[in-house]
């Protein structure tokens, strides 16, 4: 679900299957779209299905329980109810993965314009890829789209993720992405002497006020920031070339 240059039918089907599983497990945070050079290794919340293992040095009467990530381990008294064990295991996992709830936290910090509501399409038959468009489809589109924009918001507000050498992030001049005007690109950027796309201006800002290194056009951070900036100008008329 990471490289999306070509979204084939199989990838899409996979995405839907994955979402169904998440839904079946009672929802939960999806993986953060990778926005830094390093992968967010193992960011997906593991399910709580635990298996006990043979213990070597345990308090008498205790058993050691391993989470399905193969790493998170706790020791509980034998006879502890399963729900309590599951709760403790999850708490331990959350402690070791403090940013696992990154999406809700980022949404709380920085308001995001919601993606378009497609609920009017529920029940319609598209005739090609889908059978009937379901409520779950519509929810998936919105969640995934907003997730990419939210990842962009996280980069936009974080000097470290931007690679700033001077502690400057985009929001310091553009709160809520104000004054970014993505709807006016491409346009002839007089100061550059050529036609610029939004990403050219993002890179200009990264290189100058932010004093970092320009991002490749397909850098996940760039893609996410474009998503965020465009999201924040929802409802504006496209007017490419406007100064």
């Amino acid at each position: 679900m990471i490289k999306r240059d070509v979204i084939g039918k199989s990838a899409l089907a996979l995405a839907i299957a994955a979402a169904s599983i998440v839904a079946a497990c009672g929802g939960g945070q999806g993986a953060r779209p990778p926005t830094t050079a390093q992968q967010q290794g193992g960011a997906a919340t593991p399910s709580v299905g635990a298996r006990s293992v043979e213990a070597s040095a345990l308090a008498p009467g205790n058993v050691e329980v391993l989470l399905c990530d193969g790493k998170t381990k706790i020791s509980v008294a034998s006879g502890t109810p399963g729900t309590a064990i599951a709760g403790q295991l999850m708490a331990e996992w959350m402690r070791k993965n403090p940013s696992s709830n990154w999406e809700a936290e980022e949404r709380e910090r920085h308001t995001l314009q919601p993606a378009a509501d497609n609920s009017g399409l529920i029940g319609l038959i598209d005739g090609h890829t889908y059978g009937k468009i379901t409520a779950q489809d519509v929810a998936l589109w919105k969640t995934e789209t907003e997730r990419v924009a939210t990842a962009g918001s996280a980069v936009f507000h974080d000097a470290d993720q931007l690679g700033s050498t001077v502690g400057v992030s985009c929001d310091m001049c553009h709160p809520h992405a104000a004054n970014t005007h993505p709807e006016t690109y491409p346009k002839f950027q007089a100061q550059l002497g050529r036609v610029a796309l939004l990403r050219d201006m993002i890179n200009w800002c990264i290189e100058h006020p932010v004093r970092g290194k320009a991002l490749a056009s397909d850098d996940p951070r760039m893609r996410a920031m474009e998503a965020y900036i465009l999201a924040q100008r929802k409802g504006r008329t496209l007017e490419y070339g406007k100064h």
Partner: protein
Amino acid sequence: MDRPKKTPEAIIGVKSIETKHMEERAALHRGLVNLDRRSFLKVSAAAFGAVAGAGIVSPHSFQPVSVAHAQPAKGKVQQFRFAYISDSHLYERSLNDRFVNALMRAVDDVNSMDPQPDFVLYGGDLAQLGGAKELETGAQVLRNLKAPIKMMVGEHDWFLDMGEKWRELFGAPTYSFDHKGAHCVVLNSIIEADFWTARKMTPEQRMLTVAGLDNGVQSRFTVGAEQRKWLENDLKGKPSTTPIIVFSHSPLYKLFRDWNFWTDDADEVQAILKRFDNVVVFHGHTHQMLTNRIGNIHFHGMLSTAWPWPYAPQGLPELTVQMGRPDPFAPSDGCGDGSALVHPDGLADKIYNLWNRNPVTVSRTYTATRGAKDKPAKPRLESY
């Protein structure tokens, strides 16, 4: 090979004092041809505004003749000028020298004012993340000012250690003083309700949260019951004719909540100030030219030395004439410092000394007439 010789002007890009003097003189004389007295005052005031705002008034400049002609105005204040510097957002110099250099530029601007201002008001947000070294760096730069300084606190100075270092360096954040007949009050308007304890935030996390203008986790700014009580006491017994000047970091009115261009108990503070004939509030935080008037209270924003903020998407006061759209390619465009000339009636001409632009004066007659007179020129490019 000899290169063609350049004039000193071309090399350093500035004109000598003599050249400037002669140019001003010539411009004034050109303007004087066939002018009646009224227009003459306009010309001279314009000439004055242009140089005064740029902070380059020399004793030999052609200063406003209007002062000489003016009737000894009724009022309580002996006319005076103060300068302001605001919102420098300093990191330690080793991390980011750009903001430190900008503050030094502002200090140079103010130091070159002639005559010197009576005092310099620092409008808050000296530091970016409230660090002791950030505040100390700022204090060190501000020590170079020739005129006495009055400090005001901003949220970026406060929420790491809840103002401990700031108070150690600069004293109490809430105080008042009388100056040439005006009563001046400095408030701490950035008090926020506790959002951090329940979230188990570290001081650093708390500071970072407040430092994000668009961070919705933080609370709204307030002056708070304690300070409002203090303000009532401070103003007690003062006749309503006393000109009152209030300095606050956030605007003491409700402009745009999401960015804390807002003081949550602004209505209560305004109620305390209501009984006075003329009140002028100067505030920082908004990093832009901003003008408002609510009843007897006239509000003026201050420029930042670090970066300009966009205009809020809603709530912009009718009286505000926007500054020109800053050009991101021109470093420090939209930034600057400035001054205010306080008149005998207690109202003030507010001068925005934009570093890359012509200075703009928002005159007291503009707010006094609710925009009917002396409207500042609209910028060619407004924000959208």
